[in-house]
């Protein structure tokens, strides 16, 4: 369990570093897919099977295909080496270090964060998590589902309008 956690966490983090380090946008996109696959594995390790599957299908599948498509459509060139990188690199390093120190400080405060993975009780009548989430989605959360449907429609129309040659 711990070994698998380390493996997938390393996959997610190395993929993330690849996105930042690769100067070729296509390599960055592929590192991103690697990172999302590691993240989906972590979700599945946390017994979130539906969410892990969605992460692979929607993020690693649909969204990254969209990114690659746009990269190739725009014929994006490799980023040339920056001549005076020091200021922005130092600034980014300072912000990231401060953030990580903050995270470690918060995590070291103890509380409930240090306890190990609790055991999930077997659900009654063997319902899967898909079943439970479906019941919640179309029961308690029926209204947000409608709103999200309208949002997707609005996004589709917005993208079509934005992609027109001349905005009028």
């Amino acid at each position, binding site marked *: 369990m711990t070994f698998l*956690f380390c493996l997938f*966490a390393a996959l*997610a*983090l190395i993929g*993330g*570093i690849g*996105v*930042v380090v690769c100067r070729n*946008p296509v390599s960055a*996109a592929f590192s*991103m897919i690697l*990172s*999302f696959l590691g*993240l989906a594995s972590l*979700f599945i390790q*946390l017994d*979130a099977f*539906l*969410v892990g599957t*969605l*992460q692979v299908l*929607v*993020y690693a599948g*649909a*969204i990254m295909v*969209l*990114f690659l498509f*746009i990269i190739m459509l*725009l014929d*994006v060139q490799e*980023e040339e080496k920056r001549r005076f990188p020091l200021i922005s690199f130092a600034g980014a*390093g300072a*912000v*990231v270090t401060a*953030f*990580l120190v903050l*995270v*470690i400080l918060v*995590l070291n405060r103890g509380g*409930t*964060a*240090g*306890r*190990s*993975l*609790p055991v*999930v*009780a077997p659900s009654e009548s063997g319902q899967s*998590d898909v079943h439970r*989430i479906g019941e*919640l*989605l179309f029961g308690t959360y029926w209204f947000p589902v409608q709103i*999200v449907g309208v*949002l997707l429609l609005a*996004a*589709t129309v*917005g*993208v079509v309008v*934005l*992609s027109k040659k001349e905005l009028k």
Partner: protein
Amino acid sequence: MDLTLNHFLFVSGALFAIGLAGVLVRRNLLVIFMCLELMLAAANLTLVAFSRFNLVDGQPAYDAHVLLFFIITVAAAEVAVGLAIIVALFRTKETTDVTKVNTMKY
């Protein structure tokens, strides 16, 4: 060594920090957008970890999974609109380098 909530929260925090570094350091608009998605996904990991470690009646809090479902949907819509804006920007400026996009309508 048992897996604790700390492990997952730390991975999530580190991934968020990597995304933040990317947004600050990179100049290609598309890559900056990818790093933004990375930060969003890292925050999702925190949500799932908390839901798994705070059991309700011996089951994970499935409301978090529903919330995640919505987040992923909204992220997909956001990526579609954002990429359309980047394409529109590329049409007028012929570049995706954020340092070269320094004038408004002229």
